[in-house]
């Protein structure tokens, strides 16, 4: 009974501290609101989207292409006569899917590699560190492009290709954090009490580095969304999903720039920017704050 109560209390306490955190920190609060907004759009948006995003809208049998923004077509139409506003709404889904799944993989892989590389300073640690160095030596976007082209253009392949490299930042930061945590005397105390290596890693070290890996997860979410946009823009995106990057690709190749159709160019970029910004805000741009410590410790 008592343990149940205490779990309940600790959950309640956790919720309260979470709310307090968001309340205290205006940046994190803004980020959370942006995310919630886009999540709602992703779930319910299609219900409100005026048109099917792939549909070539015809009025009186005439293809309504390159329409200027109007009440009917809020942001105008594409050169194929598709409604831009509807595309924009549908674009939230792939962005969130890519963001969340990539961030999840990045967090898990990066945290595990960082934990083991930091804790086992011997052969295993060295191998993992070299692996991270190698990952740092590979140019990121070119790698994703090549791999996606090879595997075939789909959202999951994009996520996979990104996850294969993007863990490196997290791993390096987590490792340096583990290096400092493992030097703290409570870790030594655990060893003196007879705790096994695995117990020390899981029970004593992990809780102390988890906040950092969440932070890197939220940043990775931003990177993943940006990278997906870039890959789609270059024409390697999933042709079955309308993503914001794909919309910009479409706009670019169909001369929207020279026509000055800002209604087509600007909104998808703003959506991407807001979403990435939200990730930065939740992590409060801490990538830059934490970065100086990354290499000092090596």
């Amino acid at each position, binding site marked *: 009974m008592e343990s149940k109560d205490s779990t309940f209390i600790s959950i309640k306490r956790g919720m309260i501290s979470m709310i307090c955190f968001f309340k205290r920190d205006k940046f994190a609060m803004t980020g959370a609101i942006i995310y919630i907004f886009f999540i709602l759009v992703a779930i319910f948006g299609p219900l409100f989207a005026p048109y099917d995003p792939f549909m070539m809208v015809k009025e009186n049998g005439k293809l309504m292409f390159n329409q200027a923004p109007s009440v009917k077509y809020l942001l105008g139409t594409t050169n194929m006569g598709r409604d831009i506003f509807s595309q924009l709404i549908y674009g939230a889904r792939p962005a969130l899917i890519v963001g969340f799944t990539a961030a999840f993989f990045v967090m898990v892989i990066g945290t595990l590699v960082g934990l083991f590389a930091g804790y086992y300073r011997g052969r295993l640690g060295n191998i993992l560190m070299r692996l991270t160095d190698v990952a*740092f030596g590979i140019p990121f976007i070119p790698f994703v492009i090549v791999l996606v082209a090879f595997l075939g253009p789909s959202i999951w392949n994009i996520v996979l290709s990104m996850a294969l490299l993007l863990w490196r930042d997290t791993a390096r930061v987590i490792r340096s954090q583990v290096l400092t945590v493992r030097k703290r005397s409570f870790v030594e105390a655990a060893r003196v009490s007879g705790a096994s290596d695995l117990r020390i890693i899981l029970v004593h070290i992990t809780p102390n580095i988890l906040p950092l890996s969440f932070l890197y997860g939220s940043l990775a979410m931003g990177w993943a969304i940006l990278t997906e946009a870039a890959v789609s823009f270059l024409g390697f995106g999933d042709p079955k999903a309308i993503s914001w990057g794909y919309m910009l690709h479409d706009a670019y190749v169909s001369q929207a720039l*020279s026509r000055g159709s800002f209604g087509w160019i600007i909104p998808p*970029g703003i959506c991407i920017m807001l979403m990435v910004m939200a990730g930065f805000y939740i992590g409060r741009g801490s990538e830059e704050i934490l970065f100086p410590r990354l290499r000092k410790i090596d």
Partner: protein
Amino acid sequence: MAAYIDPTFTQEQQQILMQQFGLDKPLWQQYLIYVYNLFQGKLGDSFFFRAPVIEIILKVLPNTIYLMLGSLILAYVTGILGGVFLAWKRGSSTETVGTVFTLFTRAAPQFWVGMILLAVFSFKLGWFPSAGASPAGVVYSSELEKLTSFVFLRYLFLPMLTLAIYLMGLPLLLMRTNMLDVMGEAYVDMARMRGLSEKRVMLKYVARNAALPVVTAMAVGIGYAMGGNVVIETVFSWPGLGRILVKAVSSSDYPLAQGAFILIAAVMVFMNFVADILYSLLDPRVKVGG
């Protein structure tokens, strides 16, 4: 396999090509042959351009370097100065606005920024050319002449600016937080205690030390720059490595794609090496080669 080869080849030519590249063998063997050739310094021939890969990529390499170095320098100079400025204005609303604006530049997709600049300054206002690195028919006698010609610089300007806007965020925010960190160091208080002016303390003590990790972060900046290059070269149709890579990948020109990829990686590794040397020159605590 034959699908990758230009259909205008005769059957016989195709056979020769297939054998030459080992394209008649299973995929893993093809790869081993490729790696073997790579170690011999042979990158093979491009399917699409029907020319040696090495020739194609070396021809466009200078363009990529100009774009990358130009924007890196621009980004780091403005970034470091901006970081010093924001740290100086710490606690003011100027700082908050500046920080948020910088975060926006980091969050905006770089190709999108490029597209907007292109639409405004090139298509609408006509101040800058919209694509390529030089007008048709212009030939430069040397790279130096190209680099000093006004025409080329006009072509370079927009892509360089776009990339610089994207790259500027890292050194700027890093410089700002480092400055704030260093301000807490004992030697800064001691410098004030010695009666030095605030300007001198901020520049000689704070900024000088805060800049060190920013140089370290250049390694990361270079990584971003190489990734950014690929996208921005495509937006501005800049004839560089990144664009070659994108073209090669979309036309399944594997030798060319791999060649470009390897060269990009090589440039990155080399630039990292340069950043390390630069760091050891700036920080007396690090010895060269130590």
